[in-house]
């Protein structure tokens, strides 16, 4: 074991000092301990719970790699990683274990790196002891004495940049008696990326120091890239199961308002510590901090994980999906049972200024339909398909210049009425998401489809209320529309 690789007497002294202390404690009590290599898992997976009830000597090997990876569809970035992934692997140890940590800096890397584990009680969380040049390995020992869920990160100058490029992950120190068993555990880590190009700009993007200083990220993501936790990468559970999410926030700057659309957290281990709060809608996850949340999946459907600082979710990528399969539980959630006209007392319909009489959609001019359709779009479709119909790479398909939309506008009507789920290719890009049925009138559907047909370079044409009605009557099957059918 060689941690003092230095010929600088000064560095050697620091390193040797730390090492001597660690070596003593290992030989005093660690000698008789069973030795095991830690199981490391990549997000969203979590290593299995620790079943032993006595300490062990746990050996951790973690390699740092600088590599080009995918940040979003068509967008690449040079990530600096622990274990070749962002976030780095999930580490699970037990309170009182003796940890022997080996940090390997891959020889082809350009930069030195280190690791600051918030679970370590000691100077810099191991940062100085693990400071490693490319092509070298540092070894240090520590004993986790405080149970909880902790962030680890690189702390090499410039720290902000090492973190901004992806160097963080989670380490769970299980309490001596373990955590209560649950049916499923997942690892979710939020973080931001600051790129020279705007969101979605294709090609290899470089780190923007100015945006990082201004705390103006282009991407806010779960598990390292847009879509890393959505579509095919969604996580799964069954109704009746209890899910535990280990949620971390690598930052570097933003605090997360972590929320799961369609669930209430039965339990939150606040900031990843001992204290449990109950019945929480949204919990804060500080940069460089964590939270553990638990909930029972009562009803089937797709639960959406978001940073409820909501523009980050729908415009910057902070969106994940947990698909819950099983029988509907109408007592907990009935689905829509009735749609009736709401007429507040004292109001009757013709109260408004007289509108030009017309025979439903048919009498509307194309210009009218487009104007009304635009209003519908802005109220209903905009949140997902975006202001100019460009969508969000890998999450929401585009409607602008969209081959799929232009191919068959009837099909689009069916999706709006019945919803849509499953694989889909639009303009060459793959999607595998869920669009819920949109609860708007047939006239509004005719208008909005007409609007989309005549905007953003689409092929033009009109959709009539009659056709919408026919499609509604025909049901979802002819168009493969509908959700929850499989």
């Amino acid at each position, binding site marked *: 074991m060689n941690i003092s690789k230095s010929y*600088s007497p000064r560095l050697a002294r620091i390193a040797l000092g730390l090492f001597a202390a660690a070596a003593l404690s290992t030989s005093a009590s660690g000698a008789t301990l069973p030795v095991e290599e830690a199981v490391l898992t990549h997000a969203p997976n979590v290593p299995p719970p620790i079943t032993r009830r006595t300490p062990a000597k746990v050996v951790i090997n973690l390699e740092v790699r600088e590599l080009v990876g995918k940040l979003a569809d068509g967008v690449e970035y040079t990530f600096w990683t622990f274990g070749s992934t962002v976030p780095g692997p999930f580490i699970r140890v037990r309170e009182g274990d003796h940890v022997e940590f080996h940090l390997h800096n891959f020889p082809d890397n350009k*930069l030195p790196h280190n690791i600051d584990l918030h679970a370590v009680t000691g100077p810099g969380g191991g940062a100085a002891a693990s400071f490693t040049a490319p092509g070298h390995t540092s070894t240090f020992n520590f004993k986790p004495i405080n149970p909880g869920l902790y962030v680890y990160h690189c702390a090499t*100058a410039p720290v902000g940049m090492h973190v901004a490029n992806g160097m963080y992950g989670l380490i769970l120190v299980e309490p001596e008696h373990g955590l209560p068993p649950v049916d499923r555990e997942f690892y979710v880590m939020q973080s931001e990326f600051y790129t020279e190009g705007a969101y979605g700009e294709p090609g290899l993007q470089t780190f923007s120091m100015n945006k990082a200083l201004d705390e103006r990220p282009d991407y806010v993501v779960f598990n390292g890239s847009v879509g890393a936790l959505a579509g095919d990468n969604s996580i799964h559970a069954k109704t009746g199961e209890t899910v535990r999410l280990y949620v971390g926030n690598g930052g570097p700057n933003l605090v997360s308002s972590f929320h799961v659309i369609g669930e209430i957290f039965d339990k939150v281990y606040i900031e990843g510590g001992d204290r449990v709060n109950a019945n929480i809608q949204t919990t804060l996850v500080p940069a460089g901090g964590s939270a553990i949340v638990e909930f029972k999946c009562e009803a089937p459907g797709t639960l959406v994980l978001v940073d409820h600082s909501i523009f980050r979710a729908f415009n910057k990528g902070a969106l994940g999906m947990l698909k819950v399969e099983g029988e509907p539980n109408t007592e907990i959630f009935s689905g829509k049972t009735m749609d009736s006209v709401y007429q507040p007392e004292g109001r009757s319909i013709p109260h408004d200024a007289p509108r030009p009489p017309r025979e439903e959609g048919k009498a509307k001019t194309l210009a009218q339909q487009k104007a009304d359709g635009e209003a519908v779009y802005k109220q209903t479709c905009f949140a997902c398909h975006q202001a100019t119909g460009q969508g969000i790479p890998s999450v929401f398909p585009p409607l602008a210049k969209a081959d799929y939309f232009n191919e068959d506008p009837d099909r689009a009507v069916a999706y709006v009425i019945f919803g849509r789920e499953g694989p889909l290719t639009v303009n060459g890009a793959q999607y595998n998401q869920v669009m819920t049925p949109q609860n708007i009138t047939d006239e509004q559907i005719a208008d909005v489809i007409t609007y989309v047909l005549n905007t953003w370079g689409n092929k033009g044409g009109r959709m009539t209320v009659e056709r919408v009605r026919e499609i509604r009557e025909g049901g979802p099957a002819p168009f493969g529309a509908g959700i929850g059918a499989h």
Partner: protein
Amino acid sequence: MWRAAIVLLGTLTCASALAEQVRVGEGVYRPLYRNEPDQPVAAFLLDETPVTNEEFLQFVAAVPRWKRSTASKLFVDDHYLAHWAGDLELGTNAQPDHPVTHVSWFAARAYAKWKGARLPTLAEWEWAASASETSAETRGDTNFLRRILNWYSKPASTGTQPVRSTYKNLWGAWDMHGSVWEWVEDFNSSLVTGESRADSSLERPMFCGSGAAGAADVEDYAAFMRFALRSSLTARSATSSLGFRCARDLPRDPPEDSL
């Protein structure tokens, strides 16, 4: 006049035809941390490019104790010349006209000595490297800074490129940024305070956010990276993106008649 000096030097030493020196004018090096005083830098001579594989091969052939297989482990680590095919054979991973990498500080110094030269000091190197094509000092020039940062956006596994493939700065030196890291004589001085009880504070500038608070230019991330790299190294270290170039003092009083 300085050209004359080079010609003179060239005849005095066994300089190969490949290495040319350029004159870097005098200036001031501003350290990364505000509490350190500015350091005046006298004019000096600096290699126009980093030392290439071919040049280093000549050295190893002439001084066999620096061959990969025979170099003392006190002076090199296991990565020393790891990309060469053999002791005296470059092979496909080490193109002759690319900067030599995988060299330790000891080896770089030995090469410089063999050339009758020396390694630049940290202050000299930083001063020379702060020049863009058109200006001696680039502090606050965000475009220049961005270009440097772009280099860090490419992993080292993309390999080295021939010398003279990035840019030539005001002094005539090529590839000061964007090609390889370079050794300097006092590479560890950013750590050495000379006061042993200040050791624990050495970590402060290197690892903590607070370090940046004392920085003279918080936006010069590239400078932080160079300092972090240097302080992670030992004199035996060799990495795939670390090379060097030589420097020399200007002759004190160039004889007038040599013009």
